[in-house]
């Protein structure tokens, strides 16, 4: 009888331990996720800026991408970099899953398009051309936009193709065509 009771107590202890473990596990998961997203948030911001037109929509899309990333995070095994994994989920959300919502998102206002100058000398032509390019990319369709974005982020064609789900050859052909279009915008 005594042994039985001891066993019961052990079991109970095990139960509470498991619950506690689960809780700390969730906390750890949350912490790991939020810090990695905080570190890589610029990727999401760039996508938001390409796919929305004002800061409200920008924040709303950022929110939705965060939710989708978090929902998919338990399946992230770490066999690729967190940032690489992010591209796919974030683009999928922006292109396919996102619907404008009426949810309130805290808004931080920021200027329309502006690149902080990191080099010593101020090169106004580069600044202007970057803006011009940004505007040109924004007029493209949702899929083409993703293609150019991944190209600008220095992804190779293999990665671009697998993110979009098309063949490498097709990605290359399409990108070359878009490059041609962008060049005519940049050198009128």
């Amino acid at each position: 009888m005594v042994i039985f009771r001891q066993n019961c107590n052990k079991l109970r202890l095990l139960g509470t331990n498991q619950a506690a473990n689960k809780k700390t596990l969730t906390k750890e998961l949350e912490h790991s996720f939020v810090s990695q997203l905080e570190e890589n948030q610029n990727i999401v911001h760039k996508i938001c800026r390409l796919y929305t037109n004002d800061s409200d929509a920008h924040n709303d899309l950022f929110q939705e991408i965060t939710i989708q990333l978090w929902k998919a995070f338990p399946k992230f095994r770490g066999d690729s970099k967190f940032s690489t994994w992010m591209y796919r989920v974030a683009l999928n959300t922006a292109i396919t899953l996102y619907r404008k919502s009426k949810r309130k998102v805290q808004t931080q206002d920021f200027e329309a398009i502006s690149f902080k100058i990191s080099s010593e000398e101020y090169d106004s032509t580069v600044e202007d051309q970057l803006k011009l390019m940004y505007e040109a990319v924004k007029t493209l369709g949702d899929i083409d936009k993703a293609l150019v974005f991944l190209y600008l982020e220095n992804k190779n064609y293999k990665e671009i193709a697998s993110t979009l789900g098309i063949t490498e050859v097709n990605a290359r052909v399409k990108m070359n065509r878009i490059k041609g279009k962008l060049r005519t915008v940049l050198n009128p």
Partner: protein
Amino acid sequence: MDRLEVLKKEWQTRDQKFPKLSYSDIYPMLLKKSSSIVKWIIIISLLEILFWTLLAFIIPESSNEFYDELGLKGVLRWVNGFNYLVVAFFIYLFYRNYKKIQVTNSIKILMENILQTRKTVHYFVFYNIGMAIALLVGINIYYYYHQEKLIDLLNGQDTYGAIPAETVINKFFIYNFIAGIMIIGFLMLFYFLLYGLLLRRLKRNYRELKKIEV
């Protein structure tokens, strides 16, 4: 060096002005509810399945008695049994397709899986409308060949009162026909509006992606 390549370098090295969200800004975002298109599609699909499944239950008792007396009970029971099997099969297909929707898939596969899930529910609805039409036509044909019985039964009801038999039959078929057309027309309009709006962007993007592959 190509101008575009230069800009690509600049794009990567220059910081763009973005809001800098802190840990405590991001954390509350995890707790918010998603408003993704998939969520809406799933909700609407479940409502559709529920609607068509429940519809079979809410046929009034009086109409069942009506069929009984016309000798249709046995046939309708078989139709019902078959219907349950089909509903179960569709729910299984729907669930399987829904499980395939993963945000970590490639853009193309994700789109295809969403469209496939939608298509399953579409087929389910087509099946139901088709079944409704088949039943309507079948029962009316049956009525046509058993007119005497039908007149006897209808004369028992007040609505058709003391109208001559010929008129009763004509009226009966015309009412049946008009009601059928109206219900089907209404359903088609509803679907056209609902999915036209919900899937417009998805379909446009899917076409854009397909065009790359030609």
